[in-house]
């Protein structure tokens, strides 16, 4: 194996001492693991909140022991009030979208593997990188602080629609300090993501090793690169939006609060603001955010599938171009969240068209996966199962998108469980499947130990079946007119739907419970798992050319030289049916 002759000056010295090595580390691998760890904490918190919500929906008067300790006003005697239900819902959405779906697949895995996959020893700006994680961590602390303040968490949902999110305490519990903490947290989060995106872009552009042309980058590197470009623009818009919201709340301005607004019998001392402005700014970020969550998962799944199919995809290039098209189109579709906002109906049509168009590149990606799988000798393991699960969720969730993309149908389905089912499948659970696939795939590299495959497969089957049991019925509930964000349906016209809700809740408890199998597997394997070899999956990309776990400077003070794209499977190489990217052998 040839290596570049120049001994590079590493961008930072080897870390010494516990704090430099594990806490305020400049090493992209440690930072990646920190992001992943934060996402893991956030996902279990978010899941616990969804359990509380599912419990309350079907047993609204039953006490949850100990919940009154968390909030004596929100859950007096352990029974959740309707307002506290909304608080839980807001925190669930915020934790999941920002601190899980953005942190794990993009910031977590991206940080760990992007520099290695392009043959760099670290990110371009390691100090910014460290700062980006710690800023995100502070954002997390500020957000969860809302749980312990007397005001409680906000009740405005993760979208924090103005004017109710902008006027303060008159609008309800949690909308005084709780909402302010939310806006401060998200503003800080934006700063962290901007620093991270900047780093990803500069690193990919300028730190690729010799021979690593753009088209030789693995699909997941491409996915992180495209995602960072989306993140850079999306968070650059959400940050000003949050600042304006904070000014309305704290400085008495009227960006989002209209004239003559009376809330809780009090005339609000604001004039001339536009509630629709918040929706425009928020969704201009919000829709691209969907792709920030899903594109890294598309990349990870492609990477895992190629490795386990032992043959190249029908066309990796077309997947890359399709991801670019999705990234580009993601800026033209935000209005499809606002079909019923009172926006001009012509605008609705204009937003509907690109929304339907965006399904074309998504469909192309799916067809390439399926076409490549056809006739492939797929290795079945936890990573490939979760990758297949992702494809399934992506298709099932994507199909319901066709309905919602059409303004006339959306008017009926808007704000029902149909929408909740749609985005949970296509964005939430699909991205989670991508994260889990990546975890089972890369855990050996990250920890130096293998995960337990049997537990992994058990985890997959319960999660896969459970997810369909939870979210498919959501669509039927929505079609039956079941509105979202209501805390209970036992005494109204939706009462006949309660058996479906009961079924969903039980499925949610079982599926959530299965995640503890994963958690156990993760922790147990970290300490007791079988030692992982350098390249357990016989994969071709650069992360598998270095020890597990990698040394602090990745390639031992050298840069590899790249000879191939990462799709050299099904060939005759010296190591088997594959040739690694840095191997000079001819194929």
């Amino acid at each position: 194996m040839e290596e570049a002759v120049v001994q590079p000056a590493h961008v930072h010295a080897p870390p010494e001492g516990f704090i430099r090595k594990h806490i305020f580390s400049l090493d992209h691998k440690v930072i990646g693991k920190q992001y992943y760890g934060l996402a893991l904490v956030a996902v279990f918190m978010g899941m616990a909140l969804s359990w509380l919500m599912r419990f309350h929906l079907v047993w609204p008067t039953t006490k949850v022991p100990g919940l009154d300790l968390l909030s004596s006003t929100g859950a007096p005697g352990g029974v959740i009030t309707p307002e506290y239900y909304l608080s839980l819902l807001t925190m669930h959405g915020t934790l999941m979208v920002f601190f899980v779906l953005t942190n794990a697949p993009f910031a977590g895995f991206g940080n760990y593997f992007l520099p290695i996959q392009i043959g760099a020893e670290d990110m371009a700006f390691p100090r910014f990188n460290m700062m980006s994680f710690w800023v995100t961590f502070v954002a997390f602390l500020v957000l969860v602080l809302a749980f312990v303040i007397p005001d409680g968490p906000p009740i405005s949902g993760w979208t924090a629609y103005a004017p109710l999110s902008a006027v303060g305490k008159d609008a309800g519990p949690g909308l005084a300090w709780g909402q302010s903490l939310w806006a401060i947290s998200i503003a800080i989060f934006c700063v962290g993501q901007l620093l991270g995106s900047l780093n990803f872009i500069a690193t990919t552009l300028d730190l690729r090793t010799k021979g690593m042309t753009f088209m030789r980058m693995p699909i997941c590197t491409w996915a992180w690169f495209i995602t960072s470009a989306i993140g850079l623009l999306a968070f650059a818009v959400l940050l000003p939006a949050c600042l304006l919201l904070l000014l309305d709340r704290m400085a008495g301005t009227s960006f989002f609060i209209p004239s003559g607004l009376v809330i809780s019998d009090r005339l609000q001392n604001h004039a001339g603001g536009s509630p629709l402005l918040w929706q425009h700014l928020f969704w201009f970020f919000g829709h691209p955010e969907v792709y920030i969550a899903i594109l890294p998962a598309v990349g990870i799944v492609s990477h895992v599938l190629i490795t386990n199919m032992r043959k190249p995809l029908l066309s990796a290039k077309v997947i890359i171009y399709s991801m670019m098209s999705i990234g580009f189109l993601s800026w033209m579709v935000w209005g499809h969240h606002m079909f019923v906002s009172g926006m001009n109906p012509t605008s609705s049509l204009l937003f509907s068209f690109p929304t339907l168009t965006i399904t074309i590149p998504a469909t192309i990606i799916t067809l390439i996966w399926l076409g490549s799988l056809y006739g492939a000798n797929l290795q079945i393991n936890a990573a490939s199962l979760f990758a297949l699960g992702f494809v399934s969720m992506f298709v099932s969730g994507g199909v319901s998108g066709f309905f919602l993309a059409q303004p006339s149908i959306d008017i009926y389905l808007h704000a029902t469980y149909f929408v909740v089912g749609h985005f949970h499948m296509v964005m939430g659970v699909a991205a989670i499947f991508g994260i889990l696939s990546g975890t089972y795939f890369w855990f050996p590299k990250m920890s130096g130990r293998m995960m337990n495959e049997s537990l992994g497969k058990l985890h997959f089957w319960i999660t896969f079946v459970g997810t369909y049991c939870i979210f498919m019925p959501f669509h039927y509930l929505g079609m039956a007119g079941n509105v979202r964000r209501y805390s209970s349906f036992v005494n109204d016209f939706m009462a006949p739907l309660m058996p479906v809700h009961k079924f969903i809740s039980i499925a949610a408890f079982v599926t959530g419970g299965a995640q503890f199998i994963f958690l156990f597997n993760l922790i147990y394997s970290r300490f007791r798992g079988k030692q992982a070899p350098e390249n357990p999956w016989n994969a071709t990309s650069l992360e598998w050319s270095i020890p597990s776990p990698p040394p602090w400077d990745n390639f031992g003070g050298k840069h590899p030289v790249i000879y191939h794209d990462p799709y050299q499977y099904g060939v005759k190489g010296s190591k088997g049916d594959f040739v690694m990217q840095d191997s000079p052998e001819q194929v």
Partner: protein
Amino acid sequence: MASGNYAQVVEPSRFGGPDRASRSGIWVGIFAITMSFAAFTSALYVRQGSGDGTHIALPSVIYANTLALLLSSFTMEMSRRGIARGLGPEAFGLRKGMVWLVVTLVLGLAFVAGQYLAWRYLAAQGLYLATNSNSSFFYVFTAMHGLHLLGGIAALVYLIGRTAGSNYRFRQSLFDATAIYWHFMDVLWLYLLFVIGTRL
């Protein structure tokens, strides 16, 4: 590539390398900041749809500030060139470059002070952040630009510290990146002045 006192990072085998990354990084950052101000501007347009804004007479100190900032871009460029020239064994351009750098810093600080005076002037007229939508946007635009400029001032202070204190050990790319950012602050301000002047 510059020789002499710079801490060198020689990596000819790669695309770009760390020095190029600093340059890419600053352009990417500029792109993000542009996007943020585009968001603020679109907010202004939507907000003005309700037609409740009252015209603001701009304080004339704003124009003096603009002049100071434009001048600072010129001095920044003089400094950058002086220092780039001065890296040979004689290092004759370094002192000159250093002086220009300090002048840039002073002009930058003068701009910030001048903007503060503009705020005081508006406040004296009873125009505060929350008075009406135009005053809100005036304060938001100038404050956000000022915050970004303070970032540039911090970079200047850092460069002066490194230049004076440690035998000129910094990367040329860092200097170039700071200069690009500083010029961008100029361009951004001219844009904001145009928006403030025509819309508020």
